[in-house]
């Protein structure tokens, strides 16, 4: 927290949009006035508009494409990257030069996020950028927009909170912080998006939230954004007579969101049009159709009396009237594709379908294979069956096959549609009913689009000790793989043991060491460890060695790497070290190797070694 900061600023660095919100810390106490900053951005060459959202897109223009000076911003005559609305607009017609969903790449195993790999399917001579520098470009734009608006209170001197998906692994968190640091926002802290949504709900209730939840409640936060679905469980407990909130579990990183829904609708309508006309639609027509479907979907959801919405695809030439194709999106199609397709009526025992990946893995993002959000939800709740067992008074019913939430908080634009949110609640409650559990209630009053940015700004205010804070710590326990001491068996890879280095729920600002497990590191050589995380093993302490574990208990992350600089020592010398894990105030996990010999010398262990497989 920077001293003398005037504002607490929340940055929602979303997969499809960025939003920036702030609270004046100098305002009178008990008064939280949250404001969303309008972000000036190019909307087309030579045109600048203020908008509440900055689309998270980067466009890499050809040098002949845009006239000199047409990309000027109020703070820069020639910005390095084209981001925001202009990127999305230009990219819709030239997708080979568009970088989208950079954030999802940050959490993509097996990819070096600092290598220029995006756009993934661009031809050779398009200059590429890394997912890291794309994220950096958005932060830089937001910073400049802020500094342009508040020249007296530069963003570098304010309290900044950046939100990340709860499912982000340590490496992706580290990258987010590093991106912030590289644009001068080294003071930023991280906050999980579902937590931010809950903070926003608390702030909006103006103190009334204590009447809507009680001790023993388990709040399920369902955040369906443009590109990802994020799930979290937050328990309401009591400490010294006060209500306390503890985040007890987070879900996996599911690449499935509102954009998939629009695309699914567009493909349905496309098939219908092609059948009717006998002609194939071109890709630009599909794009126009996706756009039209999004608007038609919103209209149909908001106006229940409409049976269908006409859809038109205009011709590209100046002859508009003759060349316009017309069709319609019916309510039947909408509920078949969206409601049944994305929120199928399933049992609590159903699980997402996982098809074996085809041999050739394309260099794309690992999108969710099963579009059934309800199946992902069922899997999450079953996996987290014992998430609340540490709180004696709220242990799950004994015969429960999944964790029973008592309240639900929604976030994300998709759930603005009443049909979808009601369906989701109905399915969840049908599962609860089947196990004789009381129905979960919906927490109302959330601002589904801007809640994350607002909650993040409010978090800065909470960190000043002015409101209730959600406890949580790490949402997983972490392990390194060590070879077990047993005779080698020819033909078999040596057995691996998982050594716990960071327990579940480690709080920010705490550190744990493993003095009893010694490793010999070789100076001048890189040493790699296999690295694992578990979102369910809550009891493991630092130093616990696992010889075997359940199929879905441990999830392998990218390898971590230590390289010891020579620093006056002879290369090849072996230094005995032990490991230590700390959760920084920022919210990132930091692993270090500590020398057992020379007065606690420390070396940082890097997460960022994703180029492992080529």
């Amino acid at each position, binding site marked *: 927290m920077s001293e003398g900061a005037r504002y607490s600023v929340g940055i929602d660095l979303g997969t499809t949009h960025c939003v920036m919100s702030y609270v004046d810390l100098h305002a009178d106490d008990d008064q939280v006035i949250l404001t969303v900053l309008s972000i*000036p951005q190019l*909307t*087309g*060459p*030579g*045109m*600048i*508009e*203020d908008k509440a959202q900055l689309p998270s897109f980067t466009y890499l223009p050809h040098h002949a494409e845009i*006239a*000199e*000076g*047409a*990309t*000027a911003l*109020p703070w820069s005559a020639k910005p390095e990257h084209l981001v925001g609305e202009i990127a999305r607009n230009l990219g819709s*017609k030239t997708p080979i030069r568009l970088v989208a969903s950079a954030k999802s790449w940050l959490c993509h195993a097996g990819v070096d996020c600092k290598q220029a790999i995006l756009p993934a399917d661009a031809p050779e001579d398009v200059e590429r950028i890394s997912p890291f520098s794309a994220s950096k470009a958005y932060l830089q734009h937001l910073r400049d927009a802020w500094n342009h608006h508040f020249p007296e209170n530069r963003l570098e001197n304010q309290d900044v909170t950046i939100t990340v998906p709860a499912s982000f692994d340590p490496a992706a968190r580290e990258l987010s912080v590093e991106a912030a640091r590289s644009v001068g926002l080294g003071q930023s802290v991280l906050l999980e998006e579902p937590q931010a949504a809950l903070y926003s709900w608390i702030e909006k209730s103006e103190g009334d939230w204590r009447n809507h939840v009680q001790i023993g409640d388990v709040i399920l936060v369902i955040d369906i954004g443009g590109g990802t679905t994020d799930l979290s469980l937050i328990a309401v407990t009591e400490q010294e007579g006060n209500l306390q909130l503890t985040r007890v579990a987070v879900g996996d990183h599911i690449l499935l969101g509102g954009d998939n829904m629009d695309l699914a609708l567009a493909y349905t309508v496309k098939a219908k049009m092609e059948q009717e006309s006998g002609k194939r639609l071109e890709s630009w027509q599909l794009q126009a159709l996706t756009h039209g479907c999004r*608007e038609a979907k919103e209209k149909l959801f908001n106006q229940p009396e409409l049976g269908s919405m*006409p859809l*038109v695809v*205009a011709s*590209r030439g*100046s*002859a*508009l*009237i*003759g060349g*316009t*194709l*017309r069709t319609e999106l019916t309510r039947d199609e909408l509920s078949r594709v969206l409601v049944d397709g994305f929120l199928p009526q399933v049992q609590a025992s159903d699980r997402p379908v996982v098809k074996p990946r085809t041999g050739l893995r394309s260099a794309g993002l690992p999108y969710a294979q099963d579009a059934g959000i309800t199946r992902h939800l069922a899997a999450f709740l079953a996996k987290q069956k014992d998430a609340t067992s540490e709180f004696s008074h709220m242990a799950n019913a004994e015969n429960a096959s999944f964790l029973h939430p008592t309240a639900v908080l929604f976030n994300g634009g998709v759930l603005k549609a009443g049909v979808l949110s009601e369906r989701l609640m109905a399915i969840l409650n049908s599962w609860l009913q089947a196990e004789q559990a009381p129905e979960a209630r919906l927490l109302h009053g959330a601002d589904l689009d801007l809640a994350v940015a607002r909650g993040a700004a409010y978090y800065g205010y909470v960190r000043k000790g002015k409101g209730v804070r959600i406890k949580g710590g790490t949402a997983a326990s972490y392990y390194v793989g060590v070879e077990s001491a047993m005779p080698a068996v020819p033909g078999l890879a040596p057995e691996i043991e998982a050594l716990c280095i960071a327990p579940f729920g480690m709080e920010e600002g705490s550190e744990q060491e493993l003095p009893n497990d010694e490793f010999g590191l070789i100076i001048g050589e890189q040493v790699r460890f296999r690295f694992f995380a578990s979102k369910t093993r809550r009891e493991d302490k630092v130093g616990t060695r696992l010889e075997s574990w359940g199929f879905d208990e441990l999830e392998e992350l990218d390898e971590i790497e230590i390289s010891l600089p020579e620093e006056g020592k002879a290369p090849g010398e072996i230094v005995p070290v032990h490991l230590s894990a700390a959760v920084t105030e920022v919210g990132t996990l930091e692993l270090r190797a500590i020398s057992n010999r020379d007065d606690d010398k420390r070396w940082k262990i890097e997460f960022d070694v994703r180029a492992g497989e080529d």
Partner: protein
Amino acid sequence: MNTYTIDLNLQPTTFDLWHVCLAGTVAVLALILIVVLISVLLGLRRCKKAAPAPVVPTPMLQPEIKIVEKIVEVEKIVQAPAPEPVILKEATQDAALQLLSLLQKEARFIDFIKEDVSAFSDTEIGAAARVVHQGCTKALNEHFTLAPVSQDLEGSRVTLNKGFDAAAFRLTGNIVGEAPFSGTLVHKGWQVTDLRLPKLTEGHNAKIVAAAEVEL
């Protein structure tokens, strides 16, 4: 025919008593004419000065005079700004071009208007009109905040008190008497409460309202 010819070049060669009498009569007649004309003019002037005096006490005619005065004011406003509007004109030109460009981009406005609709069926025009309508709605909502001038329902009776804003409310029909005026709200009116037109970079050619598109 010679008897009727009048030769204007002829000059009297003799100057006799007959001619002297003729000249004297002409002079006397001219003098009488001048006197009569002067007296008529003076009389008219007096009549003009005297005319308003008896009209003043009738109240019916007063508003009419006010209206005349208003018209005079308006004319003055038009005449007044002489050198400054040059800059204003420049600004509005860019803004108009910008609006046109936005409507074309979002709603294909120019394409639609420039096309000859007579060759197409109503269904075809209808399909295209949807593009235009959806786009115009988007462009309008994004860049303007519109609110009705009057909050009353159209068709209801409204009363305008003295000192109402004549620019915001236009009176039509039987405009007589004095405020408060009471009448039927025919159109609720529109006003722009917020305007968010894009800013333009230096050197942006606003006259290109839609760039030609070349696909490679």
